[in-house]
């Protein structure tokens, strides 16, 4: 009993010792990624400097282009008052709903079209016809059919985000190396296991890229949709600021949009790296 206890405490003590070098090592790649990422900062700063200078030097009327510092000041005020956050959250919610719906429907459809040639033969013409109609051209139809509420916005985001996901899933399935299928079959897999253990993981990289592009489109479409008929959301906020000649607010909204896009992009790059780590070092190495 006492021996057992001794072993237990010993084990506990061992885990408590923090291996500092291993800890540092864990974060080294992140530090390197951050270093690479920071190389891009000067150009952004230069852009802000030009933005600051143009209205101050009177080259552009500050009424139409308020200085960068004014815009940032407005952005801070808006952020602190919590007004902006509400609009951001509403937009994100809509984009996420439309994108989630696209994931749920386009990915399974992509698997069916990629795997069953017959199914693809019957559906391809229809899908291609739809795909080549601009999402924005369809916006009035969605508004007419689904009204000005949430459903029309989510539907149009779903529509816009679906295609890249669908196409990338199809090409992901089609480009699975036949040798993996042969190897799996030689080990006697069932059809379901073949799908779950070979087709699905092999096509993940392609699907994740499709998801990245789809999410970007979702973010773009949500802004456009909110500009046409909404009473909340970042798109509404920018449009409203423009109509009411609240120029610094308008620029602050656009700046928020840029920051939001940047954050979503990094999140998706991170997700892509996480899910395809078995491929080794490929793709964007920035902000690993």
């Amino acid at each position, binding site marked *: 009993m006492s021996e057992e206890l001794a072993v237990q405490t010993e084990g506990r003590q061992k885990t408590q010792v923090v291996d500092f070098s291993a800890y540092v090592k864990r974060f080294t790649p992140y530090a390197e990624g951050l270093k690479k990422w920071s190389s891009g900062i000067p150009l952004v700063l230069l852009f802000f400097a030009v933005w600051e200078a143009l209205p101050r030097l009177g080259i552009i009327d500050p009424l139409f282009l308020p200085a960068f510092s004014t815009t940032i000041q407005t952005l801070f005020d808006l952020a602190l008052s919590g007004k902006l956050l509400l609009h951001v959250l509403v937009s994100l919610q809509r984009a996420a709903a439309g994108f989630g719906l696209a994931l749920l429907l386009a990915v399974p459809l992509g698997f069916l079209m990629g795997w069953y040639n017959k199914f693809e033969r019957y559906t391809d013409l229809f899908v291609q016809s739809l795909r080549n109609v601009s999402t924005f051209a369809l916006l009035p139809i969605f508004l007419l059919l689904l009204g000005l509420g949430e459903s029309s916005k989510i539907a149009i985001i779903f529509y816009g985000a679906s295609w890249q996901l669908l196409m990338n899933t199809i090409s992901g399935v089609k480009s699975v190396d036949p*040798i*993996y299928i*042969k*190897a*799996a*079959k*030689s*080990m*006697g*897999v*069932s059809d379901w*296991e073949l799908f779950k*253990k*070979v087709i699905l*993981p*092999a096509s*993940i990289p392609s699907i994740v890229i499709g998801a990245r592009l789809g999410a970007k489109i979702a973010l773009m479409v949500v802004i456009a949709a909110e500009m046409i008929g909404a009473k909340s959301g970042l798109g509404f906020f920018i449009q409203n600021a423009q109509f009411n000649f609240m120029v610094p607010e308008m620029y602050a909204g656009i700046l928020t949009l840029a920051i939001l896009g940047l954050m979503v992009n990094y999140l998706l790059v991170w997700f892509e790296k996480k899910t395809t*780590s*078995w*491929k*080794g070092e490929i793709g964007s190495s920035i902000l690993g």
Partner: protein
Amino acid sequence: MDIIVAEKVHKKFKLKHGQQVNNNGVISNEIEVLHGFDLKIKKGEFLVLVGPSGSGKSVFLDLVGGLSAPTSGVVYLDDKPVEAPSVKTGYVFQQYALFPWRSALSNIEFGLETRGVPKEERVKIGRELLALFGLSDFEDRFPYQLSGGMQQRVAIARALATKPEVLLMDEPFAALDAQTREILQNELIRIWEGTDTSVIFVTHSIDEAVFLADRVAVVTARPGRIKDIIEIDLPRPRNGDIRSSSEFAANRHKVWGALKAEVNKAQQDWKLAPVFSE
């Protein structure tokens, strides 16, 4: 006792639309790869198939593995016709064919998963095999982190994990450099000599064939059938030293004697080679 019996096996492939071959003046959109292929493999035997490119050696492996069906004739495995991939066979490919999204250990577990072997046992078997191939420190590495030789070791371990009665090996060492190739041949023979698995091994290397085989079956130029079977009378257990013996050279000479005419014939037929996958 024979574990594999191939009787009058014929295999034809349809060419792609618009492609044709001229078979002695007869224009056809089919190509015959195996023609009257008869072969018996004894239990526990190491049989090596050699033959010119396109003679259907790999196609024969696919038939034994149940991955494709003969146009006519039958392949028996343990007296039963092969109709689908069997739990009794394991397959090793030239391109390793490891699943890149799985670690070395997890790749080895694949075949055991489909057979419903519980996790602990899968891991135990996987680790034993990794140790056998000297890869114990690499169990959590992904294929891209392994050298070609290591990848092929894992692929062989994966095929052996299910304890197959027949191991099918399709030019498994062809993509490796000469040194790694010899090391892996030595390892394979060391590991195989401790089992009662039958092996059908396809190669283009006569040295490899003589070093590994109990018997070498020489396949004719397309359409393939067995031309000759040569018993390799080298003692076992074998090791690398045997390669420089005069007995080795004599056996090598015998195999090459049977193969030479077929290779020449195939050279003349060379323009057809790309249409089938050998």
